């Protein structure tokens, strides 16, 4: 009774991930078809998929190290084949950790682990940190950011304990910079890349929030665009343009389902030109989705 994933965004449900439902909803918000893909289904079903997303959470309980067990899962062989032939692949938070641990990112030497997502380094605190941050869209070949303007400031939440992009290979770092693989950097609400906490919320080198492969079809992204897909999700106290927009929409429920700042990560799959598509309205919510799936 396997579902077909042809033409759909497949959201991989490793055991322990916990953002899979809202990630499906976010992909659907731009009109894409999206479905959950349980990790132990036949990987061959992904062959005709439009794109694959590894959502956030704690795959395999972060055993050994975040992302490392999922990176060894047999499904990754299929993802490697798809990604190396241009299929769009996005890893969000724990998904980004999986992509780094599997050597897809930065991918200069495919499947060689060249980067790490190390424990956050923050002023006055350590461990897990959840907050809204701002990202600056850098010039890059990334397929997942193609509908943002260059240097556009994108507010999204982060929520992680190990999100600090690091490497001791300075030559490699220079190379990925040169290739334009640093797709997104943490910045202030006005777009200034300040290395200090909390602008850089985890101490990442170069304020890296997202790294793509050289070709641009694979993106490892620590922040959560699926939590910033609707305007209602934006805090009204947030500094900058999006906070003002949310504040101005107070009392106007018809605006709440409008586009949020993170929606265009998914819209980029549809259009490289930057025009955000009108949302289909939200399909969101665990119970609603679950019910829907049950009925189908």
């Amino acid at each position: 009774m396997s579902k077909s994933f042809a033409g759909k965004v497949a959201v991989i449900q490793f055991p322990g991930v916990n953002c899979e439902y809202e990630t499906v909803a976010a992909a659907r918000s731009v009109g894409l078809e999206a479905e959950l893909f349980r990790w132990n289904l036949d990987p061959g079903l992904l062959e005709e998929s439009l794109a694959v997303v590894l959502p956030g959470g704690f795959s395999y309980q972060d055993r050994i190290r975040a992302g490392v067990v999922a990176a060894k899962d047999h499904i990754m062989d299929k993802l490697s084949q798809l990604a190396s032939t241009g299929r769009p692949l996005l890893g969000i938070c724990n998904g980004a950790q999986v992509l780094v641990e599997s050597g897809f990112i930065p991918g200069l030497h495919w499947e060689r682990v060249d980067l790490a997502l190390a424990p956050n380094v923050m002023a006055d605190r350590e461990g897990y940190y959840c907050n809204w941050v701002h990202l600056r869209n850098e010039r890059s070949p990334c397929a997942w950011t193609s509908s943002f303007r260059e240097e556009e400031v994108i507010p999204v939440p982060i929520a992680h304990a190990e999100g600090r992009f690091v490497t001791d290979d300075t030559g490699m770092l220079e190379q990925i910079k040169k290739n334009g693989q640093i797709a997104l950097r943490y910045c202030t609400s006005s777009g200034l890349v300040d290395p200090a906490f909390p602008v850089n919320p985890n101490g990442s080198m170069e304020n890296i929030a997202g790294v793509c492969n050289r070709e641009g079809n694979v993106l490892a992204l620590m922040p959560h665009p699926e939590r910033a897909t609707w305007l209602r999700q934006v805090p009204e106290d947030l500094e900058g343009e999006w906070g003002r927009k949310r504040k101005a929409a107070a009392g106007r429920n018809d605006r709440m389902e409008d586009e949020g700042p993170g929606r265009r990560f998914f819209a980029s799959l549809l259009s490289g030109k930057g025009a955000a598509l009108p949302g289909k309205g939200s399909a969101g919510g665990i119970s609603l989705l679950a019910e829907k799936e049950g009925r189908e």
Partner: protein
Amino acid sequence: MLKGTIPIADKTDAEVQDTLRGNGLNLTVEEARKVAGLLGRDPTIVELTIFNTMWSEHCSYKSSRKILRDLLPTQAPNVVMGPGEDAGIIRFAPDGEGDHYCVVIAHESHNHPSQVLPVEGAATGIGGIVRDVYCMGADVIGVLDPLRFGDPAGENAAQTLAIARGVVEGIAQYGNALGVPNLGGDILFDRGYDENCLVNVVALGLVKESRILRSRVPREAGEKKYRIILVGKPTDDSGFGGAAFASEDLAGEEEANRGAVQVPDPFLKRVLSVANRQVLDLAEERGFSIGFKDLGAGGIACVTSEMADAGGFGVKIDLDRVNVAAGSYPPAVISCSETQERYALAVPEEFVGEVLKVYNEDFELPHLYHGAGAFVIGEVTGDQDYRIESGGEVVCQAPVKVITTGIAYDRSRKPRRVLHQEPVWQEGRSLRDDFLRVLASPNIASKNHVFRHYDSEVQGRAVLRPGEADAGVVAPLPGEKVGLAVAVDGNPFYGMVDPYSGGALAVCEAARNVAAVGAVPATITDCLNYGNPEVEEVFWEFTEGVRGIGDACQGIGLISEEGHPLPVVSGNVSFYNQGESGKAIPPSPIIACVGVVEDYSRCRSIQFKEEGNIIYYIGDTEGALGGSEYYRVIYKTLGADIPEVDFIRERNQIKTVIEMHRLGWINSCHDTGQGGLLTALAEMALGGNGQGKIGLTLDMDEFPGNSPPVEKILFSESGGFVIELSPGREREVLALCARNRVKLYKLGSLTPYPRLEIMSGGKRLAVWELDELRLVFMTGCLDIFGLRKGA
């Protein structure tokens, strides 16, 4: 043949006592004899262990049940399920197809486990409460944690800090991994909690009314064969005796009690939750009635006997079929251990295969966790017997009704006479310095540092996050206008002076919190944390607190449907909160209030929005400072004159604020709780994340001429609201307030200058730069929760 009975009937009290203690049981001798009487014979060790749990204070409410039943209103038109099962349920919105969306709410304490093992204790607190909500068939959409710790600078500071940090870490570890957002909570410190912290936890769930599951064997079991399936973590001896442990004093045997604390596993819980959802949907699709219940206190025996009893059937359990962790455990342990992350299902025989497949094959539980999985461990029987077998022998057999027989005590009570006095008023104090001290107090200072350690964003439903407003707000049904607001409250300092007011004001404050975002209070839950109920003064405090809660629920009422009380749909009683010294904690009823708002887009944060807007105060100017943070910090006393309990005034104020929200007038709103009016204004200027830049000039001349000293107005914690309105609404606002008979004071207007300024008679009484307030407010708790390296 019944195996291993324990002689009771023909033994002396001393011998019975020795037997009980020798087996690690907390039952009293009289209770053991009562068990033998009910059974009509000597009990087996398994039976005694079951009763030990079922008759613990934690499970039986043996001291509290009568008081709760007599004093708390539990019925109202919106109530779907009141107290009795794992969680309460209210309707909050029609689904347009004749069904209703419901909110499920459960509220528990995990105090003793958190005192001895803070990380695990707090984590399993979340683990337990979310199971209570999941097992109603709901999805969990948020948790909140009301926490009470000792004095961080007191005699027990080292332990207090370790507990506070550990508890926050435990909450973060479990909730973040499970994927349930944190919606709020509060944290207070007092030396009264030096030996016994309070870790309460509230969980909210979402379910359609037609999909609510009951924790019972379904009626259909009378027509066809039903099996009992146990799913989850392999049973071990962790948490054995946990309910009993929660029901005795913490008497310095912390080391010995650690085994009674359960071991949390949010990973397994997450996988189970996803798999459960599939099983429940599959049952719905196939049209099978099933029973579903989480395993909590008392483990397999308590849960399956309660399911059988509720359905009117018998059950036979075979312990040999229970998946156990490595090692061998005696039947009593397998029957009653409180191993986490387990559920029991009663499903028809023909559905068993599909259920096992979902858990064991689709979600590969046995591969994901050694020994985990779903197994048939028993069957529903047509007789009324509850029977457990082990190794081919019967280790427990009795009518279900006997197993689930309750027990009740009439505890006596006696008022605690403590003389509270107002301090001698000190003229000429520096308002400027005093306010900075109040703002820096750990009870007032921002908890942002803690909230940022929790995932507030997962599930994508957040509208107002912890710290951004008085209540957490979610949009539970994306695409729909309706919102849910939730807040917790319980100020122990009123209860110390007067336990009745402590209960009543906790309800008022929690209701005010949800009204501050524009939501209509729809239900409350209560977690009643007190000392040893066998102590007459403690039981008096408890009874007074419950009376206060009941009166407040009646007095405030259900604003959405006049003539009905604000219903209490769920709750928990936690007694024996006292440490080695034998001193009970302050009376600590903690209330969670859920409110419903018809349009969540009108819910506003507390942060000031725009220069030129006018700030009003809805409240009184009686200036009662008893129990206030001002008295505690500046005068080092509680005082005596706590805020007056006036339900009519509360109700009128709450109604007024909700109405203003509905009219779309409100730009920001904050209730005046701890720290009083001045603290509320500073919090609004700074905002939940401490980033505010808009200032306020406050004119004290707006208050009547015969008002008390300014400090009394500025620091009194008597309830009220501060609201920010656009200019030009004065006449309408005054008319509305007059109609609702509430007092309104215009405090001043918002300025482009980042400072808070207080004027009186044309003179400046005090001024603070926002940056200076920011530093004090945002860092006041940093040394406590400094989750920094080496700390």
